[in-house]
């Protein structure tokens, strides 16, 4: 983990959320998909807790973060930053997604806001020549990742709860078809989503084996180095600090 001042080099505002592209060579170099960074959310000592972000893209000396359009005042401050300003960042936190050498067909599965955290993995897998399907469940089309954010080579499947685009309803109806295609899975969502996913995998492949599916544990972080103990959860056979063991786990270890 390093601490660095990142320069805001681009600011995009889209349907309430804001995407900031940050120039931070030393951080971008160390960072992989699924590894969050911690960003100071104000100029002084308040708000005091860092905000957790999973970069959408990591390229050369650049990384970008998406600040959701919620009521958090730390996020409000971050959304108001403009090009030329700097942000105080710490990262990377913990372990990210691994793309196994033998993976040929990677299924990335995202739920709601968490789907955004898969973008940098999608980018990296495509660049390595892996066939990628990104399947996302969103409440409605306007809240889903826009297709133009994705590399051309990606197959994008969408389920919207209100039926405004893609399959109407939950993503579970798409899972049998998608899982029969994939030789590796990477997921980001809530714990309930992972339960559904694990059940679908067991149905399809009889067993949820270690090594088949990875999942990003849905958590924010305070210290990110194991000291504060706030991220401890019952995973991987014990009460673990998610910032050290995760945040990406084998799905079999967290369901």
């Amino acid at each position: 983990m390093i601490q660095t001042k990142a320069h805001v080099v681009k600011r995009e505002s889209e349907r309430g959320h804001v995407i900031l592209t940050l120039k931070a060579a030393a951080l971008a170099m160390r960072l992989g998909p699924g590894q969050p960074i911690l960003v100071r959310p104000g100029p002084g000592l308040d708000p005091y807790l860092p905000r957790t972000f999973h970069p959408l893209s990591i390229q050369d000396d650049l990384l970008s973060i998406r600040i959701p359009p919620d009521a958090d005042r730390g996020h409000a401050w971050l959304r108001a930053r403009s090009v030329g300003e700097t942000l105080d960042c710490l990262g990377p936190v913990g372990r990210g997604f691994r793309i196994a050498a033998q993976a040929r067909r990677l299924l990335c599965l995202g739920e709601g806001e968490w789907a955004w955290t898969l973008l940098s993995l999608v980018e990296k897998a495509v660049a390595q020549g892996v066939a990628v399907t990104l399947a996302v469940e969103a409440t409605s089309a306007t809240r889903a990742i826009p297709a133009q954010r994705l590399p051309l080579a990606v197959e994008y499947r969408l389920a919207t709860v209100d039926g405004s685009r893609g399959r109407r309803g939950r993503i579970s109806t798409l899972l049998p078809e998608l899982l029969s295609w994939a030789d590796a899975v990477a997921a980001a969502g809530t714990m309930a989503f992972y339960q559904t996913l694990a059940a679908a995998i067991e149905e399809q492949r009889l067993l949820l084996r270690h090594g088949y599916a990875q999942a990003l544990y849905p958590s924010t972080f305070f210290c990110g180095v194991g000291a504060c103990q706030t991220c401890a959860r019952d995973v991987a056979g014990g009460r673990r600090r998610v910032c050290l063991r995760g945040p990406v786990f084998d799905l079999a270890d967290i369901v």
Partner: protein
Amino acid sequence: MLDLAPNNKRGLVLHSPIMVGSGGAGNGDCWPSGLTPDMFAAVVTHPVTLRPRRGSEPPRLAELPAGFLLNTGDHNPGFRRLLDQHRTQWRRLGVPLIISLAEGAPGDRAWMAERLEEEPVVAGIELPVREDVNLGELSAAIAAVRRVTTLPLLVKLPSTRAAHLAKACVVAGADALVIGGPPPAVYPASGQALLEGVLGGPIALPFTLRALEKVAALALDAALIASGGIQRRQDVALCLNMGATAVQVRSLLWTDPAAARALAQWGQDPIE
């Protein structure tokens, strides 16, 4: 030279007034970016209990203005595993290591303190005190630990009751008083669950200062260590000025390691 325990044969000499407070660097093994043990005057571990504790269920953290509420429920691997897993690494720390002994069953702390006599890597013991402790029990507990150990003994008092409890601790054998554990409070964590925890971050400082002022006025024969909400050079200056010999920093290590590093250079810097 700063000595936190001048009346103790072993003493507890610090090379600067800036210590790492309990758990700030985990058990001396969790160092944020750019920080190393030797930058600080001493390192205090998380509170440890005789048996392992699973700690509290989540959420353990809630945000407050300029601070947070934290409740880990003394999550720890237990006394034996703590020593076994960390002994080797502690030998390389290079600065005094202080073991914090959490309250457990009666007699547990004295039992652990006695074992620590045989651990050359340990330089002192810190005893955190609950807010609702009774004065008689506290005296007895400190005296029981004092009887079995020659190690410097730090007692960490709750800030709301520090002035009330301080004298009895010194009489019972405390070498130094840590002032203090910030007050407990309740606030909704994310997901709306009410979290009861102890205040941390800058907002804890006004409680630390009040307790420090009142305890310093008692002019007891014990070093005072300010703890809770210390972030800036001016906070350290104020505490030293009010009678503290040293300060403990904790969450600053997490939120701004570079600032913690700069603070740890206290005294080495010509501009002060």
